[in-house]
């Protein structure tokens, strides 16, 4: 290449890059206002009509094609950053919900468009973006983000503007004083108390409860809250409840979220040799610790994991068998007794596979997401308008049908409505609900005996 042609070449590249940026920047901002393209075109043609979302109470009429200006629902999700692995599930669930909603006549007869911004797992970013969605983009309604910190930040914005904010997964229940926030995660106002009681009840239902118990807790706000209660007040918490119930707490340690060497923790658990391990785990902490304990040739007789990524646990080998966690929905009877939900679970699995997610079951995270959408739509449909105060009012004063069953929001309990959680357990290589018995499939019960 000659000199001049080379410098032209570099210039050209720079120019192209910058042009691409312009295109991208402008494209994104124009689509805020001009993306009126019919959502129907993006609807997968193979969506069976039977999957009419049960959220829309008055779908008595045959589904009609929605018309008019789209209703814009805005939210952020942690598309990047440390919350991104789980947020990806909420993206798929939300996309699927909106798609089905539009296929079934839309909302108030209008098509729905969901605008998702990336909060990068960062609360301040989430707050700023909700401000943008509400006051600049002028979205008609909002959906909560994923993640405790981002939810807390977003809720303050929602409160300022009186927006209804359903949220799927906020775990710091005691901080959510805003009346128009509607939690979908059905773990109740006091998960620090109810969560561990549920687990211990399940264990005691076997008749052979553990005598000794070890607590290994991720230093994450939600897991710390469940294990130790609200900071600075220390009311409740799994550790003190375990002591109250007469278990001998033989180990009580916390680990940072960035732990990379699980060997020492495994060694500590082996050294304590508890009958039961209460692991305040997130993400893949469970499989990592199980592998580390396996390598020590050590298995605990039973273990509970707080909020694990469910897929990797199933791939964690035989030692993960019998591990427990909490859930509110699992894709098996009795949850799928309603054919509509069976179809939704299947549709989610297909959509998740298409999106490249490794674990595609419609379970806690996805169902919480679904429930949050149901709450949002129920409010709007119920009030028959996009007026936020009316929607909020409707939700506060009516029983709402969700994937978790009918729920009544109680403002005195920060809109929580009792703990609808179940204990699930890995049995025969898959998650299955085992406790309370009304959630368990026939013939399934808690498997645990401290003897091993």
């Amino acid at each position, binding site marked *: 290449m000659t000199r001049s042609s080379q410098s032209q070449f570099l210039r050209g590249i720079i120019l192209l890059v910058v042009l691409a940026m312009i295109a991208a920047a402008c494209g994104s901002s124009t689509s805020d206002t001009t993306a009126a393209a019919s959502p129907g075109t993006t609807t997968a043609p193979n969506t069976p009509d039977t999957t009419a979302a049960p959220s829309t109470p008055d779908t008595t009429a045959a589904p009609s094609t929605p018309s008019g200006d789209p209703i814009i629902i805005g939210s952020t999700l942690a598309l990047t*950053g440390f919350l991104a692995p*789980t947020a*990806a599930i909420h993206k798929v669930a939300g996309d699927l919900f909106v798609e089905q909603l539009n296929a079934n006549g839309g909302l108030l007869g209008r098509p729905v468009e969901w605008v998702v911004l990336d909060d990068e797992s960062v609360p301040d970013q989430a707050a700023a973006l909700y401000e943008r969605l509400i006051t600049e983009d002028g979205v008609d309604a909002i959906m909560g983000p994923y993640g405790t910190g981002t939810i807390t930040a977003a809720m303050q914005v929602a409160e300022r503007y009186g927006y209804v904010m359903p949220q799927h997964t906020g775990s710091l229940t005691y901080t959510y004083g805003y009346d128009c926030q509607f939690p979908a995660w059905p773990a109740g106002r006091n998960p620090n108390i109810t969560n561990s009681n549920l687990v211990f009840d399940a264990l005691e239902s076997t008749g052979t409860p553990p005598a000794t118990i070890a607590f290994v807790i991720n230093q994450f706000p939600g897991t710390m809250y469940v294990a130790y209660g609200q900071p600075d007040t220390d009311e409740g918490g799994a550790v003190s409840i375990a002591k109250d119930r007469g278990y001998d707490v033989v180990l009580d340690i916390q680990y*940072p979220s960035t732990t990379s060497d699980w060997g*020492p923790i495994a060694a500590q658990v082996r*050294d304590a040799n508890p009958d039961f391990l209460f692991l305040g785990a997130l993400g893949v902490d469970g*499989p990592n610790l199980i592998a580390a304990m396996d390598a020590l040739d050590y298995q605990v007789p039973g273990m509970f994991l707080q909020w694990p*990524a469910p897929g990797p646990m199933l*791939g*964690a080998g035989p030692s993960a068998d019998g591990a427990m966690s909490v859930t509110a929905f699992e894709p098996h009877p009795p949850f799928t007794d309603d054919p509509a939900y069976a179809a939704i679970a299947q549709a989610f699995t297909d959509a998740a596979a298409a999106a490249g997610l490794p674990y595609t079951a419609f379970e806690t995270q996805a169902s919480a997401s679904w429930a949050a959408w149901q709450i949002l739509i129920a409010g709007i449909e119920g009030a028959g308008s996009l007026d936020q105060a009316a929607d909020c009012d409707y939700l506060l004063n009516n029983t709402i049908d969700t994937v978790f069953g009918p729920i009544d929001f109680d403002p005195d309990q920060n809109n929580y409505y009792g703990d609808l959680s179940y204990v699930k357990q890995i049995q025969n290589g898959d998650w299955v609900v085992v406790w309370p018995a009304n959630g368990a499939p026939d013939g399934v019960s808690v498997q645990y005996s401290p003897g091993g």
Partner: protein
Amino acid sequence: MTLYGQAIISGVLAGGLYAMMSLGVSLSWGVLKIINLAYFSFILLAGYGSYELATSHGWDPFVTVLAVVPVVVIVGALLQLFFEKVKIGEFESLLVTFGLLIMLESVARSIWSADFRRIPSTANPYASSSLKIGDFAFPTPQLSAFLTAIVIGLLMKYLLDRTYFGKAVRALAQDRDMARAFGVDHRRVAVILSGLAAATAAIAGVFIAMSQALFPGLAVEWFGIVFPVVILGGLGSTLGALGAGVVIGVAAAIASVAWGPSYAPLATFVILIATLLFRPEGLFTRKASV
């Protein structure tokens, strides 16, 4: 006693992996004067490559090395070629490779999604197996990573100490002009060296895929391990990196057992600060009397 013993074993073995993760950065920085954060991406992408082959194509995780390493080596060598072309300085290289790192993280996210990827135990029998000696256990992935690190460390040491190539590398690091005056083609040496360094990163990535779950944000989390190892070990020192990896692994393990796992990072960084203040050339480098 068993508790501390086992924790220390765990720390030592983890140190091997840390060393392999750090070797690329250390060599590149110490010898080529390029702070190459792209090695973090190499580790991550190699891990994903191994995951993909093991999960979708049923390869034995160990065997994936054969496919993953050559690709990463080529990428590493090409990157160095680029650096040689643009004559990049130390700090510029830090910024440029940081840009590369966040771009590659993005690429990983669009290919493998942000969700966790872990080779299921059916495809990876090694994750939970171990070698047992008395009360003590040596987990297979960590043990093999440690042994590989030792082999690589010794091979690298041999390569650097005994071969003409290695002598050329060291000569370049000590007096670039004189090395060239005696016939060393620095560009060729640099490209080969960064290829080799990339190979160690790729191997580390395979072991990581074998023992833990992957997600795109992981690369940035390794900063807290790799930089302490590189500094403690002394820039460009292979056996130093190995020693430093073990020191950090053991310090974190002991802190973890003695005061709780939340103290592990504190122990690591206190050692790091102390080293920087009192022996910034690293714990394991010997200096000719000056």
